[in-house]
């Protein structure tokens, strides 16, 4: 919301308050100032001048030599290429060393050999348009027709192009502040100044309005108030300068007196106005009704709309002539031929206007106001103000009385002024009178203990709302800050600690943390070769996504991770090892929330990175988190991974996660010409199987015995099988079993491999004798033989 300070000062005597003081104070009382700007601020050293002589340039057929009087000293010689000048014209003169909008600098110079001591300016060069000065021409020097300007006067002052424009951020609960009057009320309360409002007075005297038009509201739930007034003998012409100036400062383009009046009243009162061509209203009737299903209207901007019964329209006897609260129809637009017009000032249901504006894809200044919920009591004063302005501007002949159809009870809400509660709530100690003084400035009145809330403040409902008004004008900064009492203890839950341990361990293992979007494109499932019938393809889908790339909630963390890896690869980073604690969203029943599960995903590429790099990180992580007793098996079935280099981890029959090298085709899909490996674990499953409570085992008192075992087995036998055999054979004497060599090649039969383990045995209660060691090794070898391995001799 823009505000003209000049307009504001018509209502509140702020005098010459420095702008910074004004903006600070209103910001602190609740109307936040975003920025401010003085009109014509970029213009300097441009003054009013008068052309005193004019002759053709001797060396040019289009340049003119002017002598221009700027009020002091000799007239200046200025060369111009404009053809619209004559002696005696009052013009803007950019003197030597002046600036114009856009940072343009003017200096003395020569044009075709003759000195030019500045420049005569056009409207455009001053940053103005024909809307601001309708009498001026666009293609030529701006010849002023303003009264009372002096030669040498700064041009912005002479043109009234020196208002201060303040831009506010108005919160959605304060539709009343989308108006000059609303902001004036706030300013008056902030600075404890009087608010000088004006009551419009219409002379009328041109027949009865009621004889000319009939109004009926047929959807009273969507239109609590409709009022209209007819103006005859309309005289369309430009508005006077004061009105154009104010509109411009508020960011609205002046058009003509009728349009400008509707805009002016909307800005001043916060009440949208509309005008119809009376001649175009069939039957001279106005019906406020729901549109028929499929009913069509072409709005003022030339766009055709098909309406539904959810849209409210203003119609004549036959057809809709406006989409209520949004935009008028082309069929009833005021054209040059219009002689009689109807002003509408109405109140429509906010949510209904909001829905309609959305459904027809059109948001206007009017609809933005209506959406917030307007005060029906504001309709008639605004309508009167419009008619008063018509008379003031001599824009037509106003008829007597307004035609209305009213469907609300103009009653004010009452809230008890609970001084004690408010003081307790805010930690203040204000008297009832002090509170009343603040509320009075906001146009609240009092009846006994009750506050009577004005109807333009529908946001004031509860005593907490009153407390806010008190706090705002008492000053948030005057309320002390006090520390909470009571000794609450904050703590992390075991699950939060666990997640934090996952993170710190991954960092220690060399993985950097990433964060990726939770939404992905359905195409990402193709990129990781997810089977067409995979249940994971069924994803929570956003009905109004920004684009396909962010249209579904991921059911797997892999594609987002691979995007990140690929980005690093494309940015020519030699290696990357990344992890994310990533939520996935698994759909449940229709109409129910999805199951949001946290996954740990870690992926990496770079030299020396292979399946076992990832497996090593995964094993270290699980060990650090005390997740033990998991099982691993080859898992050739996930098409995202290399079928021979992928494993599934399970724990107590539950899936814990997957480790694998990415399938070459997946790598190709991501444009990566290297290998990458990845593992994903379900955090909840890890957490449930983690031994969170640590236990202590005494350090051994008796020595351990180590034996190396060199074995021969089939090449296809997984090493895990041999390890399990050793474990079975050694029983509880086993301290550790470590693989230290796998060999195929010379001296080993084709189809077989040699595998070497180091086995460490220890008895916690005694020193192992040579006999027990030998007997245990024998058992181990027996188990190994059962598993198909024999000692390599």
């Amino acid at each position, binding site marked *: 919301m823009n505000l003209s300070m000049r307009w504001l000062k018509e209502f509140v005597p702020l005098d010459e308050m420095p702008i910074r003081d004004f903006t600070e104070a209103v910001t602190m009382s*609740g109307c*936040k100032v975003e920025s401010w700007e003085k009109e014509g601020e970029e213009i300097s050293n441009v003054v009013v001048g008068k052309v005193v002589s004019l002759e053709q340039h001797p060396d040019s057929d289009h340049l003119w030599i002017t002598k221009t009087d700027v009020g002091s000293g000799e007239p200046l010689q200025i060369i111009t290429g404009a053809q619209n000048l004559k002696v005696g014209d009052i013009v803007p003169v950019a003197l030597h060393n002046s600036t114009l909008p856009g940072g343009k600098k003017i200096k003395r110079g020569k044009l075709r050999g003759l000195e030019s001591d500045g420049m005569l300016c056009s409207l455009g060069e001053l940053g103005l348009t024909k809307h601001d000065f309708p009498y001026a021409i666009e293609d030529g020097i701006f010849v002023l027709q303003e009264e009372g300007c002096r030669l040498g006067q700064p041009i912005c002052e002479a043109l009234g192009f020196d208002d201060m424009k303040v831009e506010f951020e108005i919160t959605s609960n304060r539709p009343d502040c989308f108006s000059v009057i609303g902001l004036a009320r706030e300013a008056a309360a902030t600075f404890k100044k009087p608010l000088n409002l004006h009551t419009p007075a219409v002379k009328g005297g041109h027949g009865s309005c009621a004889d000319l038009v009939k109004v009926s509201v047929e959807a009273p739930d969507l239109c609590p108030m409709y009022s209209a007034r007819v103006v005859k003998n309309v005289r369309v012409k430009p508005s006077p300068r004061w009105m154009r100036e104010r509109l411009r400062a508020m960011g609205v383009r002046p058009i003509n007196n009728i349009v400008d009046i509707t805009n002016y009243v909307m800005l001043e009162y916060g009440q949208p106005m509309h005008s119809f061509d009376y001649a175009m209203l069939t039957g001279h009737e106005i019906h406020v009704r729901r549109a028929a299903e499929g009913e069509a209207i072409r709005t003022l901007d030339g766009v055709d709309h098909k309406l539904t019964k959810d849209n409210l329209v203003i119609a004549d006897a036959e057809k809709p002539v406006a989409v209520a609260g949004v935009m008028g129809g082309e069929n009833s637009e005021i054209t040059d031929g219009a002689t009689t017009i109807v002003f509408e000032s109405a109140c429509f249901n906010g949510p209904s206007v*909001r829905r309609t504006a959305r459904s027809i894809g059109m948001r206007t200044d009017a609809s933005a106001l209506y959406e917030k919920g307007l005060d029906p009591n504001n309709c008639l004063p605004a309508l009167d103000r419009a008619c008063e302005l018509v008379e003031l501007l001599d824009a037509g002949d106003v008829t007597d009385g307004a035609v209305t159809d009213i469907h609300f009870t103009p009653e004010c809400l009452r809230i008890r002024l609970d001084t004690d509660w408010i003081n307790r709530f805010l930690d203040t100690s204000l008297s009832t009178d002090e509170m009343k003084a603040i509320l009075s400035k906001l146009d609240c009145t009092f009846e006994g203990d009750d506050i009577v809330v004005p109807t333009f403040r529908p946001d004031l409902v509860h005593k*907490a709302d009153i407390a*806010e008004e008190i706090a705002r004008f008492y000053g948030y900064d005057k309320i*002390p800050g006090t520390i909470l009492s009571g000794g609450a203890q904050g703590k992390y839950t075991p699950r939060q600690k666990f997640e934090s341990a996952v993170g710190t361990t991954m960092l220690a293992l060399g993985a950097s943390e990433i964060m990726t979007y939770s939404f992905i494109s359905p195409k990402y499932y193709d990129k990781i070769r997810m089977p067409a019938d995979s249940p994971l393809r069924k994803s*929570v889908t*956003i009905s109004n996504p920004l684009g396909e790339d962010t249209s579904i909630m991921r059911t797997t963390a892999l594609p987002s991770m691979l995007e990140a890896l690929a980005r*690093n690869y494309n940015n020519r980073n030699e290696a990357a090892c990344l992890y994310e604690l990533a939520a996935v969203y698994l759909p449940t029943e229709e109409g129910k929330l999805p199951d949001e599960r946290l996954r740990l995903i870690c992926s990496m590429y770079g030299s020396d990175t292979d399946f076992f790099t990832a497996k090593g990180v995964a094993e270290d992580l699980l060990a650090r988190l005390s997740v033990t007793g998991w099982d691993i098996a080859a898992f050739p079935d996930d098409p995202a991974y290399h079928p021979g280099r992928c494993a599934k981890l399970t724990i107590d029959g539950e899936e814990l996660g997957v480790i694998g090298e990415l399938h070459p085709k997946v790598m190709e899909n991501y444009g990566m010409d290297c290998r990458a490996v990845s593992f994903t674990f379900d955090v909840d499953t890890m957490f449930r199987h983690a031994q969170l409570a640590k236990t202590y085992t005494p350090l051994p008192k008796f020595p351990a015995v180590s034996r190396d075992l060199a074995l021969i087995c089939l090449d296809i036998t997984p090493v895990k099988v041999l390890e399990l055999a050793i474990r079975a054979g050694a029983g509880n004497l086993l301290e550790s079993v470590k693989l230290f060599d796998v060999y195929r090649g010379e001296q080993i039969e084709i189809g077989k491999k040699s595998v070497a383990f180091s086995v460490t045995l220890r008895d916690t209660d005694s020193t192992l004798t040579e006999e027990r060691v030998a007997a245990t090794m024998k058992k181990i070898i027996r188990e190994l033989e059962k598993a198909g391995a024999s000692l390599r001799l």
Partner: protein
Amino acid sequence: MIGWYRGDCAFVPFGDEGFFCFSARFEREEMDMKEQLEAIRKKAEQDLLGADDKKALEDLRIRYLGKKGELTAILKQMGSLSADERPVVGQLANQIRARIDEELTARASELREAETAHRLEREKLDVTLPGKHRELGHKHPLSIELDEIKEIFVGLGFDIVSGPEVEYDYYNFEALNMPKDHPARDTQDTFYISDNILLRTQTSPVQVRVMEKQKPPIRIISPGRVYRSDAVDATHSPLFNQIEGLVVDKGITFANLKGTLEVIIKRMYGEDSVVRFRPHHFPFTEPSAEVDVQCFNCHGEGCRLCKGEGWIEILGCGMVHPKVLSNCDIDPEVYSGFAFGMGLERLVMRKYSIDDMRLFYENDVRFLKQF
């Protein structure tokens, strides 16, 4: 020269005098042994000088002091000496043995010293060569900041609570005093899944869920991802992180809200931060405020960082709206509370002068490694 000896007596042929020179002969024997011992000592000293390594030293030790060594051999002849002479020669022999031993030890340690010195010299490094690296991971800057904030709140007695990101409209809006068609919904452009399920636009729904389950006193923060339909650019992201907090108890005042947040902001932004509370509107709090800190760059003068305002908005807050409390079955006549919320990305961007929000979600290691 020595003939033989038997028992204590030596019989040494000496010209034709026979026994005549018995004692004189013995004097000569004694002289001989002393000379021999001296000679051994001299020789040993000589040899020691030439011994350059551990092995040579060990050989010398065996040669002179060993069971079959030269000194032992001499000592074996002691029997031929008289009872008077024996202790004299014995003492001398022991002295010499001790001396040789000493010198051997000294020489050994000399050699060790030399060897160590040589090794140290040989092992001299170019210490300016790079160190050997163990790759460490880097925490995401958003996590770093979030963890710090969590610590501050836990220290002030807050628990940390999370909740669903895909949420019911009820929890995200309605329970928070934003019924359907409420104009404030427009300021939070929402991604919808269906009519009543959406991607939460704030983490406040977690507060509602907590209030439904837990009766006051409540002190929680709820950090997490939130979603708004904003196109991606340098300062907008359709997904970002928020940290919201809630305190509900008997007698909680607006002054408590100010005091608590002032403490937190000073912890986050430094003890000398200047803070202001300015009225604002949120449908779920009343009174509501936005909190600004004075621009750390220009100290309130107005600069590019603060867009000329002198202040930087950092969070929104307010007293929990009585309707929100009633919606959660908490009696607003008995209890009151305050709530606040702040965005994590903007905070981190300001902290490190990061000018593009997209960097957080692009995850380039060159970016991540800086934290």
